[in-house]
């Protein structure tokens, strides 16, 4: 696939810029080969909503290890949620930025043996699952979630 080759090349050349940073500006930026599209929650397909009422946009990229990264971006260019899916867990320090310690803390306080992690607090939530060979998850900032959007709505 040409796209994935370009994405992997870009990820190799620009490892930092290919990552999102939760709570900051989207790492993918306009110069990276990310998919950018405006997203409306399914509920807004009602006549009362303005036509352009997209509460967030989606940036998607694939990192050098083949992990699909998605960043969910507010109109103010702030990433309020990220997700990952791939053969390994991505570099979470790059993906979560200043919220990486929240991930570590959630794991320490919510880990139930070897099972999935569902944890966090009102500031930061994370769901992490998988096993060697295939990992996925999502982290989000509840206070920054657009009104009417639930974590499960983030496709």
């Amino acid at each position: 696939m040409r796209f994935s080759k370009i994405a992997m090349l870009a990820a190799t050349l620009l490892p930092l810029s290919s990552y999102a940073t939760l709570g900051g500006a989207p790492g993918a930026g306009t110069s990276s080969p990310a998919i950018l599209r405006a997203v409306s929650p399914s509920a807004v397909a009602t006549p009362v909503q303005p036509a352009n009422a997209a509460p967030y946009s989606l940036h998607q990229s694939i990192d050098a290890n083949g992990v699909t990264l998605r960043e969910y971006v507010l109109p103010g260019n702030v990433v309020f949620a990220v997700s990952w899916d791939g053969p390994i867990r991505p570099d979470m320090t790059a993906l979560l930025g200043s919220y990486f310690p929240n991930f570590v803390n959630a794991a320490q306080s919510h880990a139930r043996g070897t099972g999935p992690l569902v944890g966090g607090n009102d500031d930061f939530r994370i769901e992490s699952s998988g096993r060697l060979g295939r990992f996925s998850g999502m982290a989000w900032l509840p206070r920054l979630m657009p009104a009417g959007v639930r974590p499960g709505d983030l496709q």
Partner: protein
Amino acid sequence: MKKHNMNTSKKTLWLAAAIAGIALSACGGGGNASGNQGGNSIGWNASPDWISPPGGSGSSSNSSNSGNSTPPATGDNTVPVRVDASTGNVNRLFASVTVCAPGAPGAQDAGQCVTVDKMLIDTGSTGVRIAARVLPTLAPLLLTQAGAVDDPVGSAPIVECMPFASGFTWGSVKRADITIGSKTASNIPIQLYSDGAFSTPDDCVAHGGGDLGAALEGSGINGILGIDNFTSDSADAITTAIPGNYYYCPSQNRCISTRMQASQEVMNPVAGFARDNNGTVIRLPAVPAAGQANVSGLLVFGIGTQPNNALPANATVVAVDKYGTFTTQYQGRVFNRSAIDSGTMSYAFPDTTIPVSAAGLYTPTSTLNLTATIDPTNGKSAPLQMPFSVGNATSLMAGGYAAFNNIGQYFSSSHNNMFLWGLPFFYGRDVYTVIGNAKIGNETGPFVAF
């Protein structure tokens, strides 16, 4: 705890064979040449011929591979397992294992063996992992695993960063004799985590997140007994030096990511037994809807090898993929990363209509009787409507009981496609986990059956 009797000459022969096998695979250059990668790379009958462990009857593999024509007396292939409140957590299934320095002479030779309790039984991971703190005097006697594929010298210790869903365990790969009940896997690679021998690499933390070893210690868990469908723990490391997985460490502060030979990876101990090595049965009694203070059951080794581990003709057989997963459908949604996992304490799945506690557990006002469909992806078995119930976790767990068949856990993420049948599923059932391509009757592994 009985210790196996090791015939020294057999041991030597086996070691020689193992070394020859390693050399062969190294010359072959391909990961599949080693032939013992779990699950999908080899044809494998009920008695695997890829390994000729010591301790079997007879001097060659002939008699030990003769199958089940003369089954030994029932019972030598079982070990008690238990769910109780001793760790302050619910739905954790534990067994004891005995760790010995490889080839330790005599039963429970002083200082050469340690019996470790509170080993978490996990059908969702591969291999034995033990906290170094429980083996303070034995640890130095275990053999160091060296010879990483990418180690130019070949003598640096191999250390693993094992990624789990919630974090990582970091520590040396050692060779030890692992005895569970009266079955011994001799000289197999295990992980001695949180041993402090080598600094945790940055990319282990970056990809791994939190130190699960510390979290397990805080939960009173001494280790993980990973007995899933596979023989060795990392299929990907056979071909690629994955960030945050296997390392060789020339010095304390210098660890380098490496590819691995399957035979040197942390190994499912059951696959290393001389007999009854094609899988396991977890046999737990039913518990009432209000839960139970504790539960005692059995972990049975082997499937179809003894009178106590036959796979019933009417069992539901669920084929699993190379990740140990299959498909479950729930309320019209397809979860193609579904697993039957004793290491998960709940039924874990997304349902936005059920109230959830701050801890992410379902708290319906009254117990919900739900149904999901297990849809074996091999197309050979019919979909199975599987009823299960979810109670109010907060009120259930308030009583101090440890065993519940109706704890549910919420996922909100829409794209992980995960539906986990955790330990609640196991109560009142025999759950069979077949290792690799073992053939049980007409069914070929890897599969889970119940």
